[in-house]
């Protein structure tokens, strides 16, 4: 069986900061990655000064950025669910979980990466995480993928302890930065701070995950 990695996030660029190095390491080994991206981040705020985007053109720009970001880290299977930014928590959770389950049963991932419920700040992140936990939790224990979660709420380490998995992604740093840069409408500030701030550089070079207790 292929060692398949499934990544589930609500916004284009959610994969970039915390997970794209892990993704690039996986695809470099010739192993498959499936990325489910729920929305187009239609309600993003960064329009540029002077503005390069409008509320109406932003989703078209972010669609292209998402494709480029996937290319940068070798993702060949991108599944877009066509939801709207900020509305994920108002969708029916079971319906969403069932959609995730259908993909899980299809690609049979050994690892699944999403946000950590309760520790991912944005309501879309939280809703995505809850639905993923619901989907995985409904599976027979022996069939479940390993569930690795990204947490970045301020109290994450305090409550959850140190991350269970810390991956040094230095070997794919260039691919990761290209993924981050591909989302240029959203990430210009981050790219600049990685260049200037050693702490930020260290943050980008290490990806942190917590196993979710099911």
């Amino acid at each position: 069986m292929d060692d398949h990695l499934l990544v589930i996030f609500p916004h284009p660029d959610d994969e970039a900061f915390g997970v794209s190095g892990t993704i690039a390491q996986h695809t470099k080994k010739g192993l498959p990655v499936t990325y489910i991206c729920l929305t187009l981040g239609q309600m993003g705020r960064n329009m540029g000064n002077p503005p390069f985007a409008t509320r109406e053109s932003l989703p078209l720009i972010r669609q292209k950025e998402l494709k480029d970001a996937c290319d940068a880290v070798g993702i060949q299977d991108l599944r877009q669910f066509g939801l709207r930014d900020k509305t994920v928590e108002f969708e029916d959770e079971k319906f969403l979980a069932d959609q995730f389950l259908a993909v899980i049963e299809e690609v049979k991932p050994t690892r699944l990466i999403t946000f950590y419920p309760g520790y991912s700040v944005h309501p879309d992140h939280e809703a995505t995480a809850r639905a993923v936990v619901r989907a995985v939790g409904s599976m027979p224990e022996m069939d479940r993928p390993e569930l690795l979660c990204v947490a970045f709420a301020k109290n994450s380490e305090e409550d959850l302890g140190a991350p269970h998995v810390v991956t040094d992604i230095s070997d794919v740093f260039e691919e990761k930065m290209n993924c981050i840069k591909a989302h240029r409408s959203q990430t210009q500030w981050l790219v600049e701070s990685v260049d200037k701030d050693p702490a930020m550089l260290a943050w980008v070079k290490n990806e942190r995950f917590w196993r979710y207790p099911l």
Partner: protein
Amino acid sequence: MQLIQTNEVQETLDQLIGKELYLHLETTNGAYANHNNESVLTVNAYIRNGKVTPLSGKIMGNGPYRVGLKIELGWIYAEGLTHWEIDSEGRLLMAGHDAEGRLAVALQLSSSPFDV
């Protein structure tokens, strides 16, 4: 988008009076407002594809600008508008951007529904 020229926006508003239109009205300080600064309340609201027929409309102020549109049973109002355009689909897009280029308010009117 360009910086608002009030006379041009006013002429565009005048042409929309009495027409049945779709409204996008939004204000946001970002989903991470409170995460970035605990003294700030995260406040975001939008309505997309409200159906409205403006009875009158004006742009006011010296910049950033305010737009108020009277409708049959009430008002549509936005403050902080800095930029505008008529996009390739003929829609009137107005927005207020802060110094970092982040959208803080948007008021948009279209004769056909906005994409959802």
